[in-house]
């Protein structure tokens, strides 16, 4: 298979296990995001794939060639990878064109320059070719770093938090541009981020790594968002409304109505509902529960509204609505659940893990590799 294949990778710093039997497959042309909290080992996986650190347990192969096992180590310069850092690590003593041609070894100077200019053109930086890194803005440096990493036509591109150095306005534009360039190049890409929104936007598939270094869930962005199989995964995307109950007749009761689940009968369970999964309706006689609005904050394109259940007597809920919401005008309001945004997990975390551990596709995939 073209692309990256990681199998059974475990890594520890002293007693701190940061990767735990992690598997991963990225075919050429696909972008996979590793998403997880800081310190969870996602950057370690990147460094291991790049060859900047030695494998303790497991195997890494690029384009069907094994590049690292605990017994052998191929140096990074021999792996044919592109690597892009959070701080871009542009060489300050080289011009932009000098940076981009840096990786074009053994190529005639004029050919290298032409290729580099072509690459710079793709990221819209051709006119800056003779400037130096310190003369560029953060966004421009990011584009140059991308061009530099892609110029030698790597078999695998590794991106370490590539957009976190940019300000919010810039970030979205650069993300889109980067995605275009990557799709155009057809390279297998592994990207590490702690920003779920970024992962959703960029990734073909997302792998979520938990604090103990195991992969909690892997899937397309849609699955991760709508079908989280673990409390941790569900909470990645921000604040959740939390209720506790017991599974009875395949459902768990909440003040907003009962939610279906396939958990064992009688199990103590928690229900997590996304703020966008609570629907407020001005008609107090609707199907939902009566609530009282306590505050409303405009965040730009949507509104965060806090409401109290039982017409102001009960728990507070956290609701995201897409239109301007004026508190004074909404006296008689009912709330109901959009079931797509409501998830049920066992209350006990230990049980939760065993339940949530769906087989990671990458762990079973090596058999397919054998068949090839």
């Amino acid at each position: 298979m073209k692309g990256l294949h990681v199998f059974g990778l475990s890594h520890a710093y002293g007693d701190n296990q940061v990767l735990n039997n992690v598997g991963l497959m990225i075919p050429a042309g696909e972008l996979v995001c590793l998403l997880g909290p800081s310190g969870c080992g996602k950057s370690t996986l990147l460094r291991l794939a790049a060859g900047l650190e030695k494998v303790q347990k497991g195997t890494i192969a690029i384009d069907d060639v094994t590049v690292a096992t605990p017994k052998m180590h191929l140096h990074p310069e021999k792996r044919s990878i592109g690597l892009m850092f959070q701080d871009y690590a542009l060489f300050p003593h080289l011009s932009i064109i000098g940076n981009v041609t840096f990786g074009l070894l053994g190529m005639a100077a004029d050919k290298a320059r032409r290729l580099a200019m072509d690459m710079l053109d793709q990221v819209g930086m051709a006119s800056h070719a003779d400037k130096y890194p310190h003369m560029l803005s953060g966004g421009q440096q990011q584009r140059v770093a991308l061009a530099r990493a892609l110029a030698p036509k790597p078999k695998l591109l590794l991106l370490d938090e590539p957009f976190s150095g940019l300000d919010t306005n810039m970030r979205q534009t650069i993300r889109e541009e980067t995605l275009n360039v990557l799709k155009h190049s057809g390279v297998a890409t592994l990207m590490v981020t702690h920003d779920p929104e970024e992962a959703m936007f960029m990734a073909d598939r997302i792998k979520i790594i938990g604090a103990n270094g195991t992969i909690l869930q892997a899937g397309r962005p849609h699955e991760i968002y709508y079908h989280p199989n673990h409390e941790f995964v569900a909470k990645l995307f921000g604040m959740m409304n939390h209720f506790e109950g017991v599974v009875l007749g395949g459902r768990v009761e909440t003040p907003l109505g009962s939610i279906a689940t396939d958990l064992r009968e009688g199990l103590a369970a928690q229900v997590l509902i996304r703020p966008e999964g609570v629907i407020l309706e001005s008609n107090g006689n609707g199907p939902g529960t009566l609530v009282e609005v306590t505050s409303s904050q405009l965040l730009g394109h949507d509104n965060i509204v806090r409401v109290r259940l039982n017409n102001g007597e009960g728990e507070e809920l956290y609701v995201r609505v897409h239109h301007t919401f004026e508190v004074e005008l909404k006296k008689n309001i009912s709330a109901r659940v959009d079931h797509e945004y409501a998830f049920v997990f066992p209350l006990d975390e230990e049980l939760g893990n065993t339940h949530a551990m769906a087989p990671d596709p990458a762990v079973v995939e090596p058999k397919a590799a054998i068949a090839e």
Partner: protein
Amino acid sequence: MATAATTAKMAEGATKVSLSWLNVWTLGTVMIAMIVVLPIAAVIFISLTPSDDIWQHLASTVLPLYISTTLLLMIGVGLGTLIIGVGTAWLVSMCRFPGKRIFEWALLLPMAMPAYVIAYLYTDILEYAGPIQAFLREMFGWTTKRDYWFPEIRSLGGAISMMTLVLYPYVYLLSRAAFMEQSICVLEASRVLGRGPVRSFFSVALPLARPAIIIGVSLVLMEALNDFGTVDFFAVSTFTLGIYDVWLNMNNVAGAAQLATVLLIFVIFLVLAERFARRKKRFHHTTTKYKALPGYLLEGRARTLATLACALPVIFGFVLPAGVLTGYSFIHFETAMNADFLVYAFNSFSLSALTAVLAVAIGIFMAYGVRLRNERLLKVMVRLASLGYAVPGAVLAVGVLVTLGTVDNSIDAFMRRTFDISTGLLFSGTIAAVTFGYLVRFLALSFGSVEASLGKVTPNMDGAARSLGHGAFSTLRRVHMPMIRGSLLMASMMVFVDCMKELPLTIILRPFNFHTLATFVHQYASDEQLGEASLAALSIVGFGILPVIVLSLAITRSRPGHGKEQAQ
């Protein structure tokens, strides 16, 4: 269970992890460290080998004198440099008074003066036949020595003064850097809490700068122990002089080695003090907020005193001796500027340049090796290789001679046995021996500065270059070396200048009849022919000023938050 490895072929050119210690960087560094540490090990080894009763003899005769003199010298020079160094550093970094801008860099100038050079000069000026005493006799009508009292320059006190005058810049440099690093917020907090500027200095600024000051004083004391020219000229019986005496006049290797080992104990204390202070220094950054330093405006008598306090060390440590030296050089130019001078200058220059290039090359190799392979073995080896800087030249000289002598004899014996040829002494008494001695002594200087500047290059640069297909050597050459070019230049300059000034090693290790500027100055000045040697001495001082200039530029630029505000 099937793994990816069973299907994929192994990559070509991969290294076996189990053999990874067998690596050019690790092996190279271990070898360099071994070779560099050899002379020191040899000294200790010989001193522990039982020999004739020289030790008994030494212990009952000269040893107590050597110990007490060396201790007094250390106390004197330590206190002198501490007071002058810290005092002037405080004044120029915290106060405003006339000439402050000039003193900031001028206070470093005495660094360019080797202690032995000002010793010769002041003797020339202050001795009985010198101009000062002649003037006094003239004025008061004294005729003989017994008519008046005048301090004897050729004494322990004289040696302390000479060394203090040229060594205080180490303390000045480091404590000034420490004062500049201190956040003004801490000082302001102290002021707001009701302590005046002077009490704030003693209760806040000084304790915060203490690690830096200890490092400075340790360096000064290492230099004081290393000094040979001054104590030889003044006949002050320190260890260094003792080693030289036992070695060359009594012709006793074991005795010299035993003295050298005792001296090493002094050095170990200094190295430990310095290491300890360096470790402590890391915790002394109290805040990251910086503002321009306050600049207390001094007025009236304080103003005059401050100016005077800063001017005197510069005048006596540099301006006066340099002036006299320049005068002598003009007067004696005809006799001094001859073929011999040019040969000696060439010798000094080429030896120093060669050592500088080698030291920096080896320093880069070791520092990059440590960066690449973060191994304990490497770090220990590198520390070992840096020991030479603390070891006095006389001790190293004994070690180098003994080591090279052993190597020469072994080669000679081997060649005679196998080929019936006598190779004689291959290394001993050659330029190679001198260069080796210099390298052992100054390697720490180049290594330390390369290591520090490499430390400022983010490891991501390595990652980027390596992932773009460049190997370790190529990355070093195309990324790191261009990025740290400035520090490499500075490092070679410092090694170069130290080699130019170097005396004790050169005197013992040089080939017969071979002179550098330093040995030439020493020989002529000892024979009271300072005039003939003045041009050579001036040349040494001239080269010595180069790193002083760079240092003084660097120190003003280095302070965070001190850029624009300072321009006002």
